[in-house]
């Protein structure tokens, strides 16, 4: 058995021993939230609020992430994005996007919480923590990220950490009390899909060892539906994406594609894929073949 297959069996057997009945509804539990959908969608980069709203609907998402920014002091007549997010159906996940140090990220998180508390939205006490280290790659700064995680966990937040595909940092974030660790498949908005499948597998395997319900989410880099399916097949609990839908030529149908891919990938993960083999293995019986060109195997 290959190392990759061993990792899969570890995760699967852990889920089975947890009493996971395949006939039961496969719910996604994270912090104090329970969702049927495993697709978390962004709210940025859409051509219009209407396109965003329709895409959220087509993706059947139940959770969308939203950023905190300075109020525009001289042009407050614009439409409010919250009017296009159905608060009855969608939980808001505030994020700290655009923060380059722990202090800014913590301030963003606390202000996001204050807004959501006032709106009485159930997303008030969790945050997607993003602390970037470089504006060109948009890769996270692991040191500031860990620092911010510690502060926000101590402050009572459920912290969902956007991180790189480094298994060691992923472990440190979980040890610091993160509610979920969310490694990037590839840089934010790059659409490159999963670049280091082996590292992502290590992260899932490590964080779920002895803790199979710990949610691990792929965040960033998804380009198309097969990337999302692949992530779910690896054993991720959910997919968080924005640009892949918002910037698609047809965002609404791409959102539907993502929904199907995630459902399909999740089912495949639970179904136990066949091992990979270098050689062919016929599906029809060798015995009774009418041609003499193919000799039945005797062993």
């Amino acid at each position, binding site marked *: 058995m290959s190392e990759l297959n061993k990792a899969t069996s570890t995760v699967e057997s852990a889920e089975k021993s947890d009493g996971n009945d395949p006939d039961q509804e496969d719910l996604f539990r994270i912090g104090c939230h329970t969702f049927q959908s495993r697709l978390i969608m962004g*709210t940025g980069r859409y051509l219009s609020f209407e396109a965003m709203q329709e895409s959220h609907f087509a993706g059947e998402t139940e959770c969308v992430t939203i950023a905190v920014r300075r*109020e525009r002091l001289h042009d407050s007549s614009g439409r409010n994005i919250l009017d296009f997010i159905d608060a009855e159906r969608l939980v808001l996940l*505030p994020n700290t996007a655009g923060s380059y140090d722990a202090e800014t990220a913590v*301030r963003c998180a*606390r202000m996001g919480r*204050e*807004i959501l508390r006032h709106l009485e939205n159930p997303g008030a006490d969790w945050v997607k923590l993003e602390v970037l280290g470089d504006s060109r790659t948009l890769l996270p700064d692991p040191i500031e990220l860990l620092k911010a995680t510690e502060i926000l966990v101590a402050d009572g937040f459920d912290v969902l950490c956007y991180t790189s595909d480094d298994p060691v940092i992923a472990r440190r974030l979980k040890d610091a009390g993160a509610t979920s660790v969310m490694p990037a498949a590839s840089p934010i908005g790059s659409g490159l899909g999963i670049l280091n499948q082996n590292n992502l597998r290590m992260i899932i395997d490590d964080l779920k060892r002895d803790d199979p319900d710990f949610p691990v989410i792929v965040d960033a880099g998804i380009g198309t539906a097969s990337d999302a399916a692949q992530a779910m097949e690896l054993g991720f609990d959910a997919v968080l994406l924005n640009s892949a839908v918002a910037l698609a030529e047809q965002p609404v149908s791409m959102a539907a594609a993502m929904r199907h891919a995630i459902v399909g990938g999740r089912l495949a993960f639970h179904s136990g894929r066949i091992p990979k083999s270098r050689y062919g293995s016929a599906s029809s019986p060798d015995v009774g073949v009418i041609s003499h060109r193919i000799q039945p195997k005797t062993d």
Partner: protein
Amino acid sequence: MTQVNIKVNDEEQRVPAGTTISGLLDLMQITSPAVAVELNLEVQPRHQFDSCQLSEGDSVEIVTLVGGG
């Protein structure tokens, strides 16, 4: 009326002495409920908006929610 100099979202502003956070939001014509206010880097709970008065040199951040991923 005495004025105080404050900073709002990094812009210099002059407001009447005794202006509260609620008063500042009124002056700025910010009516959205989806805002949070930070005074000198400390988030201010909504229930203090009416009582919290701004002083000379205060730095205020007013933020809202926008689209993002």
